């Protein structure tokens, strides 16, 4: 267990549509006594778009953020957004293995007037990995004031937390490590907070987030499948750990209802919101009212928030 503060990289989505994730992550860290220091003057990671212009630009964008963390003296940077996390990990991988990527990043960093990031100097963690490492299930269990007992949760991880496998060398390392085919870190944490996790086969299925607006019919189909499957598995709530997945599920839940006439009632909450409430924080404090999917009545009925 380590309680050293980490650099916190919220990313663009957490300052906009994913604000509730930003808020609940900070509140959760606070309640657990874990230190977060926001990365100074960070830039966008390029999400899933910049790589389609040129993948090495995405590597540069993430390398700049890693260089800031290095400069600030942090050996760990933590990102709650799957996109940000994925891109930092991808940059780390490319800078370790690909000479051309190194050259491009060095050249661009020099022109932009900052030190080029040296591969291997900063460790990137997802908020899930950070919580598992810094507090763990036992630590969490000891702090639970308001158990999530009886709440049936489908844990949804999306694409970028586990794929492609090669950029996550620390995963799939046997007991204790995260699995790329059947991730369980969120399941572990929520179970420690008392939630009843349902067997959800679509943990790492795609929500169509990359084309959520440019090909919304495809996204609606994919999301509807995620929602109806969660309901068929008996879930009250889908727990998310990515702002793109989260807003995709929320938006296309409404779109499926309005455009296809398919109404689903499963609620969508960030796992940080659920953990926060288990620690006794109010629903408002973890930003439940900022979600589009309105789970206030359900939470109230279960004595949460």
């Amino acid at each position, binding site marked *: 267990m380590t309680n050293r503060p980490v650099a916190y990289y919220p990313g*663009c*989505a957490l*300052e*906009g549509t994913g*604000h509730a994730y930003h808020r609940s992550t900070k509140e959760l860290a606070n309640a657990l006594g874990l230190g977060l220091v926001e990365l100074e*003057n960070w*830039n*966008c990671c*390029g*999400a*899933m*778009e*910049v*790589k*389609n*212009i*040129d*993948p*090495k*630009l995405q590597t*540069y*964008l993430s390398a*700049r953020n890693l260089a800031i963390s290095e400069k600030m003296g942090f050996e760990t940077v933590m990102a709650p957004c799957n996109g940000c996390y994925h891109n930092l990990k991808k940059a780390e991988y490319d800078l370790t293995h690909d000479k051309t990527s190194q050259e*491009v990043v060095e*050249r*661009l960093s020099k*022109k*932009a*007037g900052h030190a080029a990031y040296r591969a291997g100097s900063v460790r990137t963690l997802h908020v899930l990995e950070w919580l598992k490492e810094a507090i763990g299930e036992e630590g969490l269990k000891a702090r639970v004031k308001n158990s999530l007992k009886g709440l049936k949760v489908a844990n949804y991880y999306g*694409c*970028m937390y*586990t*794929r*492609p*496998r090669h950029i996550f060398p620390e995963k799939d390392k046997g007991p204790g490590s995260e699995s*790329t085919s059947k991730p369980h870190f969120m399941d572990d944490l929520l179970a420690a907070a008392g939630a009843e996790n349902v067997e959800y086969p679509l943990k790492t*299925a*795609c929500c*169509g*987030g*990359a*084309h959520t*607006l*440019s*090909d919304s019919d*495809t*996204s609606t*189909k*994919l999301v509807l499948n995620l929602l109806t499957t969660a309901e068929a598995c008996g879930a009250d709530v889908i727990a998310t750990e990515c702002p793109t997945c989260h807003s995709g599920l*929320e*938006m296309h839940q*409404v*779109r499926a*209802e*309005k*455009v296809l006439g398919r109404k689903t009632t499963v609620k969508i909450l960030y796992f940080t919101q659920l953990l926060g409430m288990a620690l006794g924080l109010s629903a408002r404090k973890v930003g439940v*009212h*900022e979600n*589009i999917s*309105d789970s206030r009545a359900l939470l109230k009925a279960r004595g949460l928030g």
Partner: protein
Amino acid sequence: MPIHEKSLIRPENLITHEELVIDEVNVSGHWSTFIQPRVVTDYDERLQEEIAALPGGENIHRCWQCGSCTNSCTVNAINPDFNPRYWIYLIRLGMKEELVRDKEIIWQCVSCNKCTYACPRDVNPEGVMKATARWLELKGYTEKKPSAIFDEEFSAQVFAKGRIEEGRLLQRFFARTRQKLLQDWLVELARRLFSRLPLMLMMKLGWASLFHPRTRGWRKARAAIADYVAECEAMERQVLGLNGKGPSS
């Protein structure tokens, strides 16, 4: 011999003869459908090289056609015509005409990376899909697809300011793709959200769209990125044999 799997053959390649006798055997009518004989002579030997020159396409030559990509594909599960293995096959053989037939769907890859995860040969099929969609556009076979417009708008904001602001991105994207912003479902979404969103957050979001969030001291990074983008574009156009006078085939 009658063809049992007619659905696998394009209708224009099926021939049914009303009256036909071959070697004194009457093969007229529906029971003996024939396939149009075909000799492919127009292989484009540069096709693989061109795709490989675009970002994402670099490893296409490694493919051994196992089909893991198509088998794991998210979009293929919705639309069986979306077939990455087949497109990689066509590109490697240089069957341009066949590839171009699917120009309206190749851009629909959602980048879930299931193919990249499953591929035993590190082809990076997701990257190949992006490279192919880009190739179709650069060569002028298709207009810019909505996803390419979104990528452009998103990247332009990042390159200019270092960060993006979702409100403006949405507005620009809907304007450029000529969709109305006030679609029923978006209005419903806003209604649900604003019915309980506190004033402070609304003000904050409004503030963000008025004063675009930006990374401080980004000017030099912006210039460095612009130079690099211009370099890449020039190189791509050269490899694709585009003379700088706009897309051509």
